[in-house]
């Protein structure tokens, strides 16, 4: 383009040998492209999202674990119907090689929680969990369901017995029902972690540690020493471990074939 095509009057003091248009031009393109994407979202509900390949997918278990009942909107929830198909998709996808689980949960529906935990435990792909902040109640089975589990030092896990929330009332049969429910959780945790059943029950029924209930609040390092969680560590530890597990799995698969 000729400079004379669109003549402009330069303000005095600006050297005509050093024009700025090229910079402005680049800026304009960037803005224009951005608005295009926004327009696409607004008009078509779609946009060209860059799809960078990643071999590790991440799943967050946050707030309450929600099962059969939709909880009131003040609860932040992890929904069974979101998690389950995602786990199936991760298992089936040939691009995904590992799963990273991030936990910061206060508990929730026992059956939904156990279902998620069983799904993760039965996956063929390696999974690593990190307990951040808190992994309480039904969060414990989910945390231990991963192939390898980490807890950050500041995180806590509250281990306490399942109690009544009003649906099953009175009569010795309800005690039996809860007992059985508790046993399912106990068995899962004992099977999927290094904690002994005796130690687990001791933590579960300990008196004097929690104000509202019996049970224990287990902090980072203690969770590891009791054998519930494998190791203390954060994101980089988990990432390294996951890559290691993926490598091991690839090697064993290679040997089998």
């Amino acid at each position, binding site marked *: 383009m000729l400079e004379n095509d669109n003549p402009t009057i330069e303000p005095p003091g600006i050297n005509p040998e050093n024009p700025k248009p090229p910079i402005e031009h680049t800026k304009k393109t960037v803005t224009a492209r951005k608005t295009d994407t926004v327009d696409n979202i607004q008009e078509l509900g779609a946009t060209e999202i860059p799809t960078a390949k990643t071999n590790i997918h991440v799943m967050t278990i946050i707030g309450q674990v929600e099962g059969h009942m939709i909880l009131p909107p003040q609860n932040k929830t992890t929904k069974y119907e979101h998690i389950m198909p*995602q786990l199936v998709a991760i298992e089936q996808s040939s691009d995904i090689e590992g799963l990273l689980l991030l936990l910061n949960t206060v508990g929730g529906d026992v059956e939904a929680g156990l279902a998620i935990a069983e799904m993760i435990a039965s996956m063929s792909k390696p999974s690593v969990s990190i307990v951040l902040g808190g992994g309480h109640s039904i969060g414990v089975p989910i945390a231990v369901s991963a192939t390898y589990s980490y807890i950050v030092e500041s995180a806590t896990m509250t281990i306490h017995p399942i109690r009544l929330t009003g649906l099953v009332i009175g009569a010795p049969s309800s005690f039996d029902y809860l007992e059985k429910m508790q046993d399912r959780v106990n068995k899962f945790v004992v099977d999927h972690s290094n904690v002994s059943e005796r130690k687990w029950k001791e933590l579960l029924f300990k008196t004097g540690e929690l104000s509202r209930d019996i049970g224990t609040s287990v902090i980072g390092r203690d969770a590891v020493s009791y054998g519930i969680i494998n190791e203390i560590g954060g994101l980089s530890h988990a990432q390294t471990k996951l890559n290691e597990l993926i490598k091991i799995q690839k090697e064993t698969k290679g040997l089998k074939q």
Partner: protein
Amino acid sequence: MTFWSILPEELVFSTNNFPDSPPLYEEIQCNNITLLVEKIGPTQCKVSRLLTTNPQDYLHPDIQPGKILTYKPIL
């Protein structure tokens, strides 16, 4: 349903934490990514959460939580 949580029951199941009107959440699809959005008007919504396991999806600038999206009819 058996609920096992450290939060007291009355806190989880209470429905009067929002005296006026509770936020209305909706799940929408945006380029194959499920978004949990809060409706803030008949034609607008605010991205609240991304429901995807692909970590790369979370980097996309146009669907960051807090972004306001506008619904427009597809003709």
